[in-house]
């Protein structure tokens, strides 16, 4: 029984491939349309994943820099240390003295000529403070409070842009979701129509098969295979479009990266996400086909 069932499925799969190849232009066009439609939301998703990983590398918890006045004394530094230790919002902090800061500046970016020509160290002492994750409003209050401490020149909220990026990513995710829903409906509609046209050319076969005892699932099967295979091909096309775009962008990025001494390149979808994309596109094709066949079969039931 199982063997016969498997052989039937294998047979249908083979027939479906033959049918796809027998109309190469039509098949190719639908696959390209589906691929482009899918590549839009998937591509934006990839872009956002990349932005997210960049922002994730930069700061995991909110960070502030406290710059001290240039004439700040050792006592001031000790007092600020104590104030930071007592503050419940502060998770950790690190003191960067003006000498260390200057040394770091000399180390990086080939600025040693410039720094060597300085008469005196223009950099202030600073604290780098990591705080609890909190709303921007609370963090802003904390920043204002620190600003009032004596011997503090300026408090900079380093990770404000990360917050903004996260808000933007949240909006982006919503846009991706909307796009994905709309374009999925479009793909189902495309597949519905493709299968409807196929059914019209196979009307005799369907009617006769039903008259001599074919179940609905027997009649549906080749169309479902067709929808799923074409959907899968559309998904592969979308994946390839994104891969090509990433390759192109990365080639451009290499120049910028060299200019700014900054490691940046885009990543493609993770293996899990890639498989999800392919499965989802196959499912969309299957669903469009299923709806199409169901609406036709309903019309020819006995009354």
């Amino acid at each position, binding site marked *: 029984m199982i063997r016969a069932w498997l052989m*039937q499925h294998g047979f249908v799969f083979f027939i479906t491939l033959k049918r796809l190849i027998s109309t190469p232009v039509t098949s190719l066009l639908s696959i390209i349309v589906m691929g482009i439609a899918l590549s839009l939301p998937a591509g934006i998703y990839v872009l956002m994943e990349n932005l997210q990983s960049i922002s994730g590398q930069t700061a995991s918890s909110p960070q502030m820099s406290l710059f001290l006045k240039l004439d700040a004394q050792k006592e001031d530094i000790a007092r600020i240390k104590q104030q930071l230790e007592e503050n419940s919002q502060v998770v950790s902090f690190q003191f960067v003295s003006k000498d260390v800061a200057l040394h770091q500046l000399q180390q990086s970016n080939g600025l040693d000529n410039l720094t060597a020509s300085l008469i005196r160290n223009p950099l202030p002492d600073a604290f780098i403070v990591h705080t609890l994750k909190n709303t921007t409003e609370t963090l802003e209050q904390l920043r204002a409070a620190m600003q009032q401490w004596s011997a503090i020149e300026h408090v900079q909220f380093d990770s404000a842009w990360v917050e903004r990026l996260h808000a933007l990513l949240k909006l982006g995710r919503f846009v991706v979701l909307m796009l994905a829903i709309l374009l999925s409906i479009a793909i189902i509609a495309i597949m519905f129509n493709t299968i409807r046209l196929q059914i019209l050319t196979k009307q005799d076969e369907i009617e006769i098969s039903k*008259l001599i005892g074919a*179940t609905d699932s027997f009649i549906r099967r080749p169309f479902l295979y067709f929808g799923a295979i074409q959907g899968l091909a559309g998904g592969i096309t979308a994946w390839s479009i994104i891969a090509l775009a990433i390759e192109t962008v990365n080639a451009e990025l290499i120049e910028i990266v060299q200019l700014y001494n900054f490691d940046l390149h885009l990543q493609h979808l993770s293996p899990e996400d890639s498989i999800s994309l392919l499965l989802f596109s196959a499912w969309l094709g299957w669903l469009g086909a299923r709806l199409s066949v169901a609406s036709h079969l309903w019309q020819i039931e006995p009354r």
Partner: protein
Amino acid sequence: MIIFKNVSKRYPDGYVALNNIDLTVASGEMVFLTGHSGAGKSTLLKLIAAIERPTSGTITISGQNIAQLKLSAIPYLRRKIGFIFQDHKLLFDRNVFDNVLLPLQISSFDNKTVASRVRAALDKVGLLKKEKAMPIALSGGERQRLCIARAVVHRPNILIADEPTGNLDVEYARDIMAMFTSFNQVGVTVLIATHDASLLEDTQHHILSLKQGKLAV
């Protein structure tokens, strides 16, 4: 055993094709259904295979009420029946062999036995040498025999034929009737609708005649 009880069929346009039919066909019996065209012969046959459904009444086949059959159960009913359609319903995009193969593909027989079954059916109707031919290249009589081969290839208990000798000359018609008789002799219940009186002259089989949707005695 096929039992009709108070079966009526009225079409949506108000036309009454069958009016309160009661009949019984015992299993293994061969029955002719006669009457003018429009008397309801085709409708009656289609009700048996649930191709159409009665407006009222019950139709029982081996204890199962066809009138109330769920849609999902209809295919399994049809697999017990071999139906020879008035308009043949052959597939012109495939050859003789593949036309006869279709019922076996549908009920998913094992691939090893299907070819021999198809050839056995073609042999019974004398079309074995034409298995590669396309239906369009066959004569009227050959097409009718192809329909018979397709109807019997899955060895149904009930064989239904709607005007099987429709446009055939007398000799061909006699051949075909002989085939039905031989199927009946191996235990198949056979129902044949025909308006061809010459077929019925020397038969000892049960004859039911329909007149304007009613059984005439």
